[in-house]
C-alpha cells in the first residue's frame, strides 16, 4: 500500500518525539500502578487467526482527557475500541481504572463506567427511541429521568421522536441515539467509534456540538475517527494508527504541522 514509503521517511524525522512519548508513559506506569490514566494500554496486540490487527500499542488516556485515534480504513481503530471495551482477546495489557480489562465482561465494564458507542451503532431497531435510551441506563445506578433529560437537551431531535422505531430514523438521528444511549450509561470513559461516518455536514455540526457538551460534563473520551479534521478540532491528543501500529502521536497543533499527516490526511 502507498503509506509505506512516505511513512517510513516521515517517521525517521519524528522518531525521538515518539520515543520521548513512550518513555514518559512507561515511567509514569513505573511510579504509580494506575498512573493518572483512566485507561492505560501497554504493548497490546490483537490478532484474528493468522492476521495481526494490532501490535505494540501503547496508549494512555487521562481523566477528563479527549484522545482521538485516527487512521485510514482498516488501520485497527475499531479493533482498538473493541479491545478497550472488552470485546476482544488481546496480549499485553489494557487497564481501565487500574484493573485489567481482560478479566472483565463488557457488562462489568459498563457498570464501572466504560461505555462504548460502536461504529455500527448496534441500536435496538424494533424498539422506540425512548426504549433504546432507557436500556442504555440498564447498568447505571443513576436517575434515569435526569439522564434522559440531559440526552434530550443534548439532542433535541430525539425528543421529538420518542416513540419512533430506531430503525426508521435517518443515519444522523441514529448516531445521536447511539451516543445518547451510551450517555445514559453514565460513562466515565466514553469510547466513540466513527461517530461521523456517512453523515451529512449539517448533522455533523449537531454531533460536534453534542460532543463538546459531553466533554464539558467532564466525560473522558476516546474517539476513533477517520475524519481527521473532525478529530483535530476536538481532541486534546491524537494518535495515528496505520496497519495496526502507532506511527504518530502528539497534540493537534503538532500533527497539523506534520508533513506526513498533512500530505496523507489533510489533503496537502
Amino acid at each position, binding site marked *: 500500500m502507498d503509506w509505506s514509503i512516505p511513512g517510513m521517511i516521515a517517521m525517521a524525522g519524528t522518531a525521538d518525539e515518539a520515543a520521548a512519548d513512550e518513555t514518559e508513559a512507561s515511567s509514569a506506569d513505573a511510579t504509580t500502578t494506575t498512573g493518572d490514566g483512566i485507561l492505560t494500554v501497554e504493548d497490546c496486540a490483537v490478532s484474528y487467526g493468522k492476521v495481526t490487527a494490532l501490535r505494540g500499542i501503547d496508549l494512555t488516556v487521562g481523566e477528563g482527557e479527549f484522545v482521538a485515534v485516527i487512521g485510514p480504513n482498516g488501520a485497527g481503530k475499531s479493533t482498538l475500541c473493541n479491545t478497550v*471495551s472488552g*470485546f476482544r482477546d488481546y496480549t499485553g495489557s489494557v487497564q481501565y481504572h487500574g484493573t485489567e480489562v481482560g478479566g472483565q*465482561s*463488557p*457488562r462489568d*465494564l*459498563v*457498570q464501572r463506567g466504560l*461505555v*462504548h*458507542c*460502536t461504529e*455500527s451503532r*448496534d*441500536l*435496538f*431497531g*424494533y*424498539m422506540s427511541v425512548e*426504549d433504546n435510551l*432507557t*436500556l*442504555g*441506563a*440498564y*447498568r447505571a445506578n443513576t436517575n434515569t429521568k435526569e439522564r434522559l433529560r440531559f440526552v434530550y437537551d443534548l439532542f433535541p431531535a430525539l425528543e421529538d421522536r420518542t416513540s419512533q422505531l430506531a430503525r426508521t430514523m435517518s443515519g444522523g438521528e441514529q448516531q445521536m441515539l447511539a451516543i445518547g*444511549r*451510551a450517555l*445514559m*450509561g453514565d460513562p466515565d470513559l466514553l469510547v466513540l467509534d466513527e461517530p461521523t461516518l456517512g453523515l451529512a455536514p449539517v448533522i455533523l455540526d449537531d454531533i460536534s456540538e453534542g460532543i463538546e457538551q459531553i466533554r464539558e460534563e467532564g466525560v473522558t473520551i476516546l474517539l476513533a475517527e477517520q475524519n481527521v479534521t473532525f478529530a483535530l478540532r476536538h481532541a486534546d491528543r491524537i494518535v495515528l494508527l496505520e496497519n495496526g501500529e502507532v506511527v504518530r502521536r502528539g497534540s493537534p497543533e503538532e500533527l497539523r504541522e506534520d508533513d506526513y499527516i498533512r500530505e496523507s490526511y489533510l489533503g496537502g
Partner: protein
Amino acid sequence: MLGTVAPLQANLSTVLVQIVILSSLYALVALGFTLIFGVGGVLNLAHGANITIGAFVAFVVSSQMGYGGFVGLAAAFVLTGLLSGAYYLGLIKRIQDEPIMVMIITLVTAVAVEEVIRFVYGSQPKVLTLLSGRVNIGGSTVTFTQLVAFALSALLIVGMFAFVNYTRQGKALLATSMSHKGAALVGIEANRINLLVWVGAGALAGAAGVFLGSIQGASWAMGRAPLVLSFSIVVLGGIGSIRGSVLGAFVVGTLEILTVQYVDSSLTGLTPLLVLVAVLLLRPEGLFGRELVEA
C-alpha cells in the same frame, strides 16, 4: 371404496371455535421455540422433548401420585422450566455460539429423552385429565379441558407479552433478540438472558405438553409434531416476535382446521410445512417479522 359419500362439512361457527382453540394452543407450543431462536439465535430441537417431559411430569404427579390435574400442570410448568434451564447451563451454554452444534446436540438430546420416556413409561399413550365434561359453543363440542387449555394459553401468552414489553428484564430480553452487540454495549449479560429464556421456554413447553396430553393423550413421541409446527409458526410469524408467533399460530391453526374440514384430513401434516417453505422462499423475514439478522 365408499367413495360415493361426499365429505361432510361442519358449519362455520364450529370451525371458528375450533380454530381459536387450536391456534391458541399452537401459539403456546411455539412461543418458547420463538424466544430461544429470537434471543439466542439457535434452534432448540429439544423443544418437542420439553413438551413430552411436561406431559409426563403431569402424568406422574396427577395420575400416579394422585395430586390432581392442576397440581400436575403446575409441576410440569415449574419442573420443565428448571430442567430446561439446567440443560442450558450444562450443555448449551458452552456451544451457544455454534448454531449448528446446538441443532445437532439438541436433536440428539430429543432422541435420548424420547427413548428414556418410552423405556420407562412404555409406548402406549397415557391419558391426562384436567377437568371432565363438555359444553357446546357455537355448535361445536368443546371440553372443559380444551377451554382451560385455551384460557391458560391465552393468559400465559398475554403474561409473556406484558413481561417482555413492560419489565426491565423483559425489555433486556427483547433488546438481546434485536442486537447481541447492542445488548452487550449497554451491559446486558447475554448468558443471564439466555438462561431466563431457556427456563421460560421450558416452562411454557411443559404447560403446552400438559394441555396436549390431556386433549390428545401423552406418548413418548408426542413432541415431534409440535416441534415441526413450531418451525412453521416461528418462520411464518417472524423470528423472535411474540406477536408474530401468535399470528403465525393462528395462520397454521386455521389452515389445519380448514384442510381437515374442507379438503382432506390426510393433508393435515403437509399444509404447515408447505406454508413454511413458501414463506422461507418468498418472504424469509416472515409475515410480521424483521429482516434476516445474521448472528
